[in-house]
């Protein structure tokens, strides 16, 4: 039994860190429980000669492959897209590409504009100050003036174009299509104690230089200095309720497997779009037999991923390879709904710089491009460092049959039921992906690439876990209200991607964090009557 805290946050990733930092100025007693460890910069793969190999072992992006003691298994057999995550202080901001677009104003109004899904109960204008604050806290590099977005001012200049970026830029100009340097949380100048990017190139599994923003080096040092306690290797099993149906606290296991109860006045979930519904569904009581705060039956439903359609090819000269952050440009040419297409909504193109020597060999071997025997060497030399590619990040509309449930057999190392995913790609998304692949082929042709290849969907492409505890004003059609509080449990909040109503067609971390800061502010403004 531990002393009761005022606020208990579960998960220290993108949203948990942001909400902890923002609430710290209330001087409340705030505790965050994180199932993983701190990761030291010296642990990151780019420190060693085995840097690419570790993408297939302790820094694999798929938790089932990585299988660290801090990971939990996920039954994703019934999904064409597998989950990507990381469990540790910083959560999946340790294991992301740092691509940092915001949702667009239209993304919050899809029902009104396009007659599909639902509008969000909040809008872009509401989040705009939180986007800006988060850009400052995470340290965003980019370029003002993008015609695809309302005005914004990234605090650092953009990543370099490099050879591949320039090739794509010329191709897009030739086609007359939009492109722009990406907003990214990779520091291009020294920034708030972080050293600038020196193009290690292997950004996704953690940055040894500290140039890539992950919340362990952005929000957390400030939150801890302000008095927030962060307790690692604490895996929460369930949220308990009191006789009034309010959250009483949580039961968790420490690193030795010992069970603890932690009482709290307020509980905030920040475990991502798979971890949060898993925990809620596992929090069963007489009051909540279907899982806590699940009177709507929507906890775990409406899982959205963003199917990725990757198209790539090879040019006749060496380009950047894996030198430099992998993503440096985006295009919003096909983002907004066009009634002349056979699908609604749209997608972002993100342009890739290239891949490392080993990854090129493995991917090419799997695709049958790399012969065995004498011809292997000549064939490989036509591929290495000559790849350029781009992915369409497609908006995934909510569908209730796409869902997270509890697996009846699979359990984690503490005996907690693992999440089970049932997910199919909708016809609308399939059409969108086909459109993206066709346009990508035109772009690659204009960029002088041949030997075109497609991976659609990207199998290990479940980076974005959204929609499984959606936000709304109607308690029968949503799990949390318009400021993140569960309709059913007035001291239980959710701040991660679970609360998204629709997915947009962009990487979500920027918007997830802006939402977390907005919810934190909403809590602070209502402290006197938070549970009314």
């Amino acid at each position, binding site marked *: 039994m531990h002393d009761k805290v005022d606020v208990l946050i579960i998960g220290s990733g993108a949203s948990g860190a942001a909400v902890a930092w923002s609430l710290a100025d209330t001087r409340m007693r705030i505790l965050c429980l994180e199932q993983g460890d701190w990761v030291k910069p010296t642990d990151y793969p*780019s420190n060693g000669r085995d840097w690419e190999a570790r993408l297939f072992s302790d820094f694999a992006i798929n938790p089932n492959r990585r299988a660290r003691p801090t990971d939990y298994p996920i039954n994703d057999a019934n999904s064409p897209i597998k989950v990507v995550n990381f469990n540790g202080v910083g959560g999946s901001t340790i294991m992301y590409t740092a691509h940092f677009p915001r949702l667009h104003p239209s993304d919050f109004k899809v029902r009104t504009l396009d007659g599909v899904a639902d509008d969000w109960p909040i809008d872009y204008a509401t989040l705009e100050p939180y986007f800006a604050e988060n850009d400052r806290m995470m340290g965003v590099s980019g370029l003002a003036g993008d015609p695809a*977005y309302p005005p914004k001012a990234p605090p650092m200049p953009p990543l*370099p174009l490099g050879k591949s970026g320039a090739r794509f830029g010329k191709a897009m100009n030739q086609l007359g299509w939009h492109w722009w340097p990406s907003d990214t949380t990779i520091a291009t100048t020294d920034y708030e104690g972080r050293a600038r990017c020196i193009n290690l190139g292997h950004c996704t599994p953690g940055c*040894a*230089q500290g140039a890539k923003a992950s919340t362990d080096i952005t929000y957390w040092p400030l939150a801890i200095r302000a008095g927030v306690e962060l307790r690692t290797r604490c895996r929460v099993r369930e949220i308990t309720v009191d006789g009034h149906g309010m959250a009483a606290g949580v039961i968790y296991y420490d690193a030795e497997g010992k069970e603890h109860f932690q009482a709290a006045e307020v509980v905030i979930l920040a475990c991502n779009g798979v971890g949060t519904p898993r925990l809620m569904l596992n929090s069963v009581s007489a009051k909540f037999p279907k899982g806590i705060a699940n009177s709507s039956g929507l906890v775990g439903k409406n899982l959205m991923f963003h199917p990725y359609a990757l198209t790539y090819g090879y040019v006749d000269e060496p380009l950047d390879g894996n030198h430099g952050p992998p993503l440096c440009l985006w295009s919003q040419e096909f983002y907004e709904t066009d009634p002349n297409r056979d699908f609604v909504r749209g997608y972002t193109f993100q342009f890739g710089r290239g891949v490392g020597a080993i990854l090129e060999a493995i991917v090419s071997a799997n695709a049958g491009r790399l012969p065995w025997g004498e011809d292997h060497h000549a064939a490989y030399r036509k591929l290495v460092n000559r790849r350029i590619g781009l992915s369409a990040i497609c908006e995934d509309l909510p569908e209730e049959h796409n869902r997270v449930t509890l697996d009846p057999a699979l359990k984690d190392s503490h005996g907690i039921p693992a999440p089970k995913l049932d997910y199919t790609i909708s016809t609308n998304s399939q059409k969108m992906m086909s459109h993206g692949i066709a346009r990508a082929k035109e772009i690659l042709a204009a960029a002088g690439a041949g030997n075109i290849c497609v991976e659609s969907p990207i199998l290990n492409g479940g980076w974005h876990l959204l929609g499984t505890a959606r936000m709304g004003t109607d308690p029968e059609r949503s799990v949390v209200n318009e400021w993140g509080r569960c309709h059913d449990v007035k001291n239980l909040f959710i701040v991660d991607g679970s609360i998204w109503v629709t997915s947009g067609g962009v990487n979500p971390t920027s918007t997830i964090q802006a939402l977390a800061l907005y919810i934190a502010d909403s809590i602070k403004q209502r402290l006197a009557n938070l549970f009314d």
Partner: protein
Amino acid sequence: MAPPDLTAEQIRDFRALAGAIIPPSASYGVPGADDERIFSDILRSLERDRDDVCQALAHLVRLAGGAFADLEPARRVEVAATFREAGGAPLAALVRVVLLCYYRDDRVMRSLGLEPRPPFPRGHVVEQGDWSLLDPVRARPRMYRGVD
């Protein structure tokens, strides 16, 4: 329980197969994947793929009708070609380990013009590029939809 080590027979077959996948090349001045240093690295690096590698090698023995390493060169090529088509996920894991170790060997990396070193701390140079390429995009009108 830790998965068992490979037997001496499996190691012989594995090494012969690695050499069939990537043989040495005098033209490029590179060793094959059956090179002693590279193959030792492969054996040390099986970790999560050990079970798949064992399964793949068992399949190879079945196709070869005995030890793959003992086959005549022409027959080896034939069996390897069949195995490549039929090996499935276990073979993909085996090939992955071979490639992981082959393409981090200093001699191989140098032959490709790559520096045999980790990315940190020296990093790399990426050219800034010509930002005037953006001028036509800057001149475009607003693209995002209004919602009011």
